């Protein structure tokens, strides 16, 4: 077996680490989660000469080895544990040429762990605009490493970097700084107590915040060594930082020349407008408006195309496959259900594209700065704006995006309220109900259907803000309020990075939803075509008593009767009393229960139920509009339709979100409360709405 080299990509946030990763690996990459946490683990393969492969790990961005978030902790845990299966053979430290001094702090820390390093100085194309000159051989000598200048604009440097990776065993792995420089007395004492341990590693372990890390500290307990108080440790950490900056400054004094007079930058000019106390907000509103306009205007073109494509696939299957229950399951349950997801791919892709452009360009941090004061009265942070915007695509990545909120209470509130934001999965439900019950007419000059959809979006947003306000009042959590966000340089977003993000996120949305729909369709179909008891087994006799066997409605009557007494029918009937006051029947009840796993399953479930019941060629919409109540009125009328939309606006109908909330809050308490409270609000609101309208 050929040797595989393990490479860790480490660097401060906003240094273009991911671009380097993409350049090295191309599409040869996969994203998974680290076990037990939802931190994304990006891994890719880079082919080197002579069949050697390098495994590249793109680690979360961090400013230092003192983890203050779960993301950062991943880096520390990996670098401290030599027995970890991903422990790197070498580390590439990616740094930003304009912020070299700060980036080198992390570099020197990694170096002190005795890991062979390559220093990649990224965005080197900006040196000439910033009047920066570097003496590379001086820096290589004094930082004791190999340096490579990289840029996100070309890939010419990749061969040289691959060459350095192949020859990683020639890289120096000496320490940069003797930890005793930080505080001689403390570190001498430490070394005396643990003579066999590496002093710097020991120090990093001691400094880790127990809230995040699972780094083993137990060995410290038994020893005859006094761990200092947090305040004292902090003082030492401060000393360490100052010491590192001193050493780095000394090196950069001779290795780097910055001629400020040559620096040209339009960043300052852009900031004057984009963070302005009036224009800044105006611009942000315009961006949001443009974003939603684009998503609903542009996306309709591919959506119509996808819709007709799935309709023709369904038709083709029905014609070319032997007619029967299996074909119905395939055509009406599975293909229609999958189609119901794929149709949202254009909107989801657009949303992710916008969010990734906002992030890549550096603008998102400006929005955080502008919105912090606006969000604080509601117990949220400026950083909550990112999850709230991403939540319009999907709550799952949105909740993961709360990780950079330092304040636990603000973060928790953001996690708890994000599921109210109208996500892409609610759209299939909303759109089909709107087209059924809201007339396609103009109301005050605006299309009533469009107005309803906008109303639902606003409803979700205000529900989130309002519940944040309540939570802020009732949650008693004391946590350090601190808020630091870097305002990165404005950058033209790289098409490749944006595309990779869009493909990655959209793919996982389709596959995750597809898996659920497939399994639920099959389960429903089995439950709907089996039953116990006389009524199900003797259905033919019972139905033929009321209708003659040659009556044209006989077959439909028979299958309705069978469905009603199948296992599924019994389940639906048993929950009917609970949902009847909301205006729903037992079939909608089944759809609500199954769409607990994921909202978008609602439409597919109704499709499966109706296909079991009828063998006419109809679309789901036609079938839904033909459904009538016992009193002869249509089942999906204005009252029940709006009541259903309100129910979906508030209800926590998404298992994946609950799972993410459980992981991110590390307790069952929050997702459970979220589920109970949201379902309660949904039920109550739907009840009031139905009773008022009908």
């Amino acid at each position, binding site marked *: 077996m050929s040797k595989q080299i393990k490479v860790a990509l480490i660097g401060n946030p906003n240094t273009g680490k991911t671009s380097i990763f993409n350049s090295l690996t191309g599409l040869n990459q996969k994203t998974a989660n680290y076990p037990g946490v939802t931190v994304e683990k990006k891994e890719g393969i880079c082919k080197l000469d002579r069949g050697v492969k390098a495994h590249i790990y793109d680690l979360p961005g961090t*400013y*230092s080895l*003192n983890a*203050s978030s779960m993301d950062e902790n991943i880096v520390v845990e990996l670098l401290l544990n030599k027995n970890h299966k991903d422990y790197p053979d070498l580390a590439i430290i990616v740094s930003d040429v*304009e*912020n070299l*001094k*700060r980036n080198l*702090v992390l570099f020197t820390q990694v170096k002190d762990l005795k890991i062979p390093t390559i220093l990649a100085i990224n965005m080197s194309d900006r040196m000439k605009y910033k009047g920066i000159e570097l003496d590379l051989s001086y820096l290589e000598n004094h930082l004791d490493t190999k340096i490579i200048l990289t840029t996100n604009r070309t890939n010419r440097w990749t061969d040289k970097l691959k060459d350095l990776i192949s020859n990683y065993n020639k890289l120096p792995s000496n320490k940069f700084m003797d930890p005793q420089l930080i505080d001689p007395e403390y570190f001498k004492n430490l070394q005396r107590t643990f003579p066999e341990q590496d002093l710097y590693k020991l120090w990093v372990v001691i400094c880790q915040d127990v809230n995040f890390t699972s780094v083993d500290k137990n060995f410290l307990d038994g020893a005859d060594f006094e761990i200092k108080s947090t*305040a004292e440790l*902090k*003082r030492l*950490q*401060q000393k360490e*930082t*100052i010491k590192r*900056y001193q050493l780095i400054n000394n090196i950069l004094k001779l290795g780097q020349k910055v001629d400020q007079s040559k620096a040209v930058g339009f960043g*300052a000019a852009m*900031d*004057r407008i984009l*963070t*302005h*106390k009036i224009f800044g907000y105006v611009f942000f509103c315009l961006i949001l408006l443009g974003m939603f306009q684009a998503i609903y205007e542009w996306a309709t073109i591919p959506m119509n195309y996808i819709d007709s494509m799935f309709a023709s696939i369904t038709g083709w299957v029905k014609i070319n496959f032997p007619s029967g229950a299996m074909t119905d399951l395939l055509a009406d349950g599975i293909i229609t259900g999958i189609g119901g997801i794929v149709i949202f791919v254009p909107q989801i892709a657009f949303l992710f594209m916008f969010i990734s452009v906002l992030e890549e360009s550096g603008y998102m*941090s400006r929005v*955080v*700065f*502008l919105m*912090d*004061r606006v969000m604080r009265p509601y117990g949220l942070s*400026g950083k909550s704006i990112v999850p709230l915007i991403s939540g319009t695509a999907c709550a799952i990545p949105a909740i993961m995006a709360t990780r950079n909120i*330092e304040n636990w209470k603000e973060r928790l509130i953001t996690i708890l309220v994000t599921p109210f934001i109208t996500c892409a999965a609610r759209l299939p439900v909303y759109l089909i109900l709107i087209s059924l019950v809201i007339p396609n007419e103009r109301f005050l000059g605006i299309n009533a259907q469009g107005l309803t959809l906008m109303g639902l979006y606003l409803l979700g947003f205000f529900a989130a803000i309002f519940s944040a306000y309540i939570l802020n009042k009732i949650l008693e959590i004391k946590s*350090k*309020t*601190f*808020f*630091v*966000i*870097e*305002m*990165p*340089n404005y950058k033209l977003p790289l098409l490749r990075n944006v595309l990779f993000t869009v493909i990655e996120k959209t793919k996982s949305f389709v596959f995750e939803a597809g898996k659920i729909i497939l399994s639920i369709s099959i389960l429903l179909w089995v439950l709907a075509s089996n039953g116990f008891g006389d009524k199900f087994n003797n259905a033919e006799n019972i139905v033929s008593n009321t209708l003659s066997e040659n009556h044209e409605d006989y077959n439909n009557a028979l299958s309705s009767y069978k469905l009603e007494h199948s296992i599924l029918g019994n389940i639906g009937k048993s929950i009917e009393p609970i949902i009847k006051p909301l205006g729903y029947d037992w079939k909608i009840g089944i759809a609500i229960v199954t769409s607990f796993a994921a909202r978008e399953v609602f439409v597919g479930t109704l499709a499966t139920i109706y296909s079991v019941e009828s063998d006419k060629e109809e679309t789901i919409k036609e079938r839904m509009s033909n459904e009538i109540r016992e009193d002869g009125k249509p089942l999906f009328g204005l009252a029940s339709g709006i009541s259903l939309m309100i129910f979906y606006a508030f209800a926590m109908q998404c298992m994946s979100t609950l799972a993410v909330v459980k992981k991110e809050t590390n307790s069952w308490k929050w997702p459970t409360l979220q589920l109970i409270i949201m379902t309660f609000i949904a039920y109550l609101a739907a009840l009031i709405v139905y009773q008022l309208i009908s």
Partner: protein
Amino acid sequence: MHSIADLKKGEKAIIKDVSDNNIPIKLLEMGCLPGNEVEIIQLAPLLGPMYININGSHLAIRKETAKLIIIDKPINNE
């Protein structure tokens, strides 16, 4: 005693002391250390966060944190 929170937009000052225990280490690592220059780039309205440049790092911090970063008198912009 002056702190960063007293500075107006466009003003600069040299950091004197950051020894308060409530200052996050992360801020120090980003270059908020005694002797470094800080410049106020933008202030958010209604006592919102401050957008500052410390030692080449562009950051936004809240007023509460800014109050903990002690400075000498503001350097007058000539």
